[in-house]
């Protein structure tokens, strides 16, 4: 377990380094929201997801929807390091004719499973994907990573109602709860809290954890995945996180991951100006010295 955690933590740092490289090269993009999601994305792509970079269109693969599409550099970094395309291509982010669009586009980028970037849509798309997998009788899972600010979109709660109604256990929602959105804190801007109670009121099982504690992340994701791959009607349930009862039969799981916007680059942490901002040369060098890893060649 310790080796697994160390490996994934190293990968997360690499992905953060790739994000800074990509945004610095593009001179555009959203680094802060990538950093809060980096550990979750690393765990998914390098431990949990059943995917095959050699065959990105494999129909029965697991799916990952980055509903907070503005954080796509972290997704692109994960896809590149997982082997979907060369890491050097990350430098083409947001440039003319690049496969790496400003927000994710499924038909342009190998490995991107859904369009996103107009906030709030991942859970609905995921609901459709999960229903399709159930109908086709395959055990592929759908993971949807949402921001917390985007939970202000009404469609998220329409989808939350649907997923619970359909008793979908082959979908896992993850909230990157960094507490901030473009214009300030999620509570000041949108009145988001209380959050746990909202999900529970919509019929969801809520697992809260530290979104930068790799041990907690993989433990919860792995349990949710094992449960999701089993038939949803079996009713054999286990706790997703310690000291909490298991989800009820057919009850969908949302993981509220408490995160820090900008995590991993001290001058970005908690500074919301990094929601969308490009590092200066000095800031870039500092980030590179802190985030050890490979370059984009």
């Amino acid at each position: 377990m310790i080796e697994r955690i160390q490996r994934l933590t190293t990968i997360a740092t690499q992905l953060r380094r790739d994000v800074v490289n990509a945004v610095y090269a593009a001179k555009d993009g959203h680094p802060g929201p990538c950093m809060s999601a980096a550990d979750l994305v690393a765990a998914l792509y390098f431990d949990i997801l059943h995917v095959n970079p050699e065959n990105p269109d494999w129909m029965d693969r697991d799916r990952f929807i980055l509903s907070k599409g503005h954080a796509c550099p972290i997704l692109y970094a994960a896809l590149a390091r997982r082997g979907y395309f060369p890491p050097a291509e990350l430098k083409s982010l947001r440039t003319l004719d690049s496969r790496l669009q400003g927000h994710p586009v499924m038909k342009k980028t190998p490995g991107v499973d859904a369009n996103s970037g107009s906030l709030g849509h991942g859970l609905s798309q995921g609901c459709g994907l999960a229903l399709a997998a159930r109908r086709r009788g395959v055990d592929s899972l759908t993971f949807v990573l949402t921001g917390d600010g985007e939970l202000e979109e009404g469609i998220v709660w329409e989808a939350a109602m649907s997923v619970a109604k359909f008793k979908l256990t082959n979908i896992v929602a993850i909230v990157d709860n960094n507490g901030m959105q473009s214009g300030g804190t999620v509570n000041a801007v949108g009145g988001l809290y209380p959050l746990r109670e909202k999900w529970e009121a919509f019929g969801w099982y809520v697992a809260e954890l530290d979104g930068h504690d790799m041990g907690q992340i993989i433990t919860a994701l792995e349990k949710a995945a094992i449960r999701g791959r089993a038939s949803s009607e079996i009713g054999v349930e286990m706790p997703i996180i310690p000291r909490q009862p298991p989800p009820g039969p057919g009850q969908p799981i949302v993981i509220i991951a408490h995160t820090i916007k900008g995590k991993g680059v001290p001058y970005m942490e908690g500074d919301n100006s990094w929601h969308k901002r490009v590092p200066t040369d000095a800031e870039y060098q500092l980030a590179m010295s802190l985030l050890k890893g490979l370059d984009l060649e």
Partner: protein
Amino acid sequence: MNKQESTRVGFMQGLDAVAEKDDRILLVSADSLKAMRADLFAAKYPGRVIEVGIAEQNAAATAAGLAIGGMIPYFATYAGFITMRACEQIRTFIAYPELNVKLVGINGGIAGGEREGVTHQFFEDIGILRTIPNVTILVPADAGQARQAAIAAASIPGPVYIRLGSGRDPVVFEGNTPFNPGKIHILQQKGRDIALFGNGILLPRLLAAAEVLGTRGLGVTVVEVHTVKPLDAEGVALVLNECGAAVAAEDHNIIGGLGSAIMEVAGENAPVPIARIGLRDRFPGSGPPDALLDRYGMGLRDIVDAAVATIGRKGRRA
């Protein structure tokens, strides 16, 4: 001409026919099963109805997910709740990735919404969808064509919109009328004084107008344009050049729909005088369908007068 048959029922018959052959076909509902007359379908295919409740945006985005997952979802509800409330979901999550989602809008036009009033009369749907790339737009004229459109949509790759009516829809074509998406359908060619283009519920009025014009010694070509997008621009231009004048009629705002599409072809390829028949950019109201069409600029006399005036403009510089 007074015989009625529901376009909704016709559509559901077509959906049943394709669903029997292809188990990827699903019906997505936003509490619209009753309106869609889908009870028989739901009873026959209980596992193939995805009911999300009164939540059209969620329905559209869920349909996108279903399509990514290999299904062929038909999302059917009121035309405006699809094309306006779920407009962005269609644009970014269905049309942009060219997903195999079929959209079915009922109460198309002011006659389609009839007594419900403006909230349920949808005269903007075609104009809205025409500005979104990758969307095929079909406007069946009656129940028989609605049935065929439902079947045809399954084999048209990518997003397709099918516009339906109130469920009290006049029968235009007796028997098995051919329905070839993508091509104009010439209904009659009795001369080249003017061409009358139209679709949907207005087709019987166009045919009646052609008859009136005929009694005045004018030769009329009547053309059905059930596929508004991609428009058969070549076919339209050919007719325009042959006739040298045209009327384009539809139960839709005169802005953005079939009339605009025909004028775009004319402006670029066949500059002839054209008059548009449709709702003249104002809000209508409740009423019986025929009275509504008469009141809001789509009456037989409106079409005849527009045709005569347009023939009078032939050969003059506009």
